[in-house]
């Protein structure tokens, strides 16, 4: 039986359909559930994805209002059972605002996804970036199938994506605990602090951060936008760009797994082995 994934549709998100498709491509059953469905409906799933977009029009702050919704009671309860929860972009902002990530102190909000500063100014920024697996792959639900240090090109699109905290030593603790899942890097895999490799000025070059157990991950880049080879630009440096170029005359090859599929595939394997 395929793992069942719930893609939670808060008002204002806009990536739920492609996220569900990417999860299905990875061999999971994915359903899109509105945030106000009866709460017991959410308990029937093996994992959750909070997709990207602008939940509640980013009112107050990105993710702030969705984090107050009642559905979170269930998500928190299900996450405590070890089920994976992946927040992508706005979903990541929601997880941070809800205090699930980094989750070093239960219930406390310990960081923010603050406005970008990487460009030397604020504002929305879209581009392809390179991510390097920076924890032991078996530490988190979304790196389960990945290789240590593996590099994935993934697109970003956000105005508030800078992981930051006013707590002294927080990021050092996250490094020590292996909670920084992906770091921004150059095409060769060298972690990079400066723009454009680190597109938003994120502290410790963090692109994705998990809770201590590794089953809840807040990830700013969009793996669902590169789950197929055909979504990868041929001009990208590295093997994924080369694969895209080599696939250009074959519709079948274009439908192969893209780099983002590695994330969803990991989630599936994690559920099959752990949940």
């Amino acid at each position, binding site marked *: 039986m395929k793992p069942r994934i719930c893609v939670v549709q808060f008002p204002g998100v806009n990536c739920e359909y492609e996220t569900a498709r990417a999860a299905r491509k990875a061999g999971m059953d994915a359903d899109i559930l509105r945030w106000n469905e009866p709460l017991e409906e959410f308990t029937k799933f093996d994992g959750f994805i909070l997709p990207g977009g602008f939940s509640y029009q980013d009112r107050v702050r990105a993710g702030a209002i969705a984090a107050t919704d009642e559905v979170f009671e269930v998500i928190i309860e299900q996450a405590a059972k070890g089920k994976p929860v992946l927040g992508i972009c706005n979903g990541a902002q929601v997880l941070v605002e809800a205090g699930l990530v980094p989750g070093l102190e239960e*219930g406390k*909000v310990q960081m*923010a996804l603050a406005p970008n500063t990487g460009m030397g*100014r604020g504002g929305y920024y879209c581009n392809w970036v390179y991510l390097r697996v920076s924890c032991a792959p078996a530490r988190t639900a979304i790196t389960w199938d990945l290789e240590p240090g593996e590099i994935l090109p993934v697109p970003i699109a956000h105005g508030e994506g800078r992981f*930051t*905290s006013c707590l002294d030593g927080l990021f050092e603790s996250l490094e020590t605990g292996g909670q920084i899942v992906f770091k921004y890097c150059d095409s060769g895999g060298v972690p990079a602090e400066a723009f454009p490799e680190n597109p938003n000025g994120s502290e410790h070059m963090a692109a994705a951060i998990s809770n201590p157990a590794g089953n809840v991950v807040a990830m700013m880049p969009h793996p669902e936008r590169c789950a197929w080879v055909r979504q990868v630009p041929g001009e990208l440096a590295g093997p994924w760009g080369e694969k895209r170029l080599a696939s250009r005359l074959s519709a079948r090859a274009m439908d192969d797994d893209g780099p983002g599929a590695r994330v969803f595939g990991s989630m599936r394997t994690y559920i099959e082995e752990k949940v």
Partner: protein
Amino acid sequence: MTDVEVLVKLVAPDPWSFTVYDALSRKFGLEEIVGIERMRTWSLSYDVVAADDAVGPTETILRETVLLANPNRDIRQLRAGASEPVKPGIYEPGDGVVGAYVVKVHNLWDSAGEKVARIARSRLGIDALRSVSSSTLWVIEMSRGEPRSRELAERVAVLEARGAGLLANPHCQEAEVVSAREYLLGGSG
């Protein structure tokens, strides 16, 4: 250095205020909160001594650009000091309001303010403008007086945990809680 302030409020009903009201009154269960108003405030610091020398260039920015307020959408008021009461279109207490507090939320990285300052200097030639900062003002209207009203305003101001605080995430924002009477109505206390 002389500061002036521009308060800006939507002419139309503000859906952000409704969302925050819903979150605080229904989701947080704070039934004593009876209304929320939102406005934006711009604080402009000039390298001048007389207040008029700060008011004039600010009026130029308001007249020549929509950087601070868009007259098609917003009403605004230029104040030389917080002791000047705001006009009723900007804020007046709603019916049944006993206590009202302003939660002033400022982003620690204020790119909006920097942008205004840069454009005002480079395109309008307002060289005396030293800095601009922007904040959001949330007016929390409550059916309770002191000290409960202040306590409630402080409780919702800073996000500490899920369900505890909302308006400012202290990891990227700072919040100040001020009496609405003092900040907006020109009164004291």
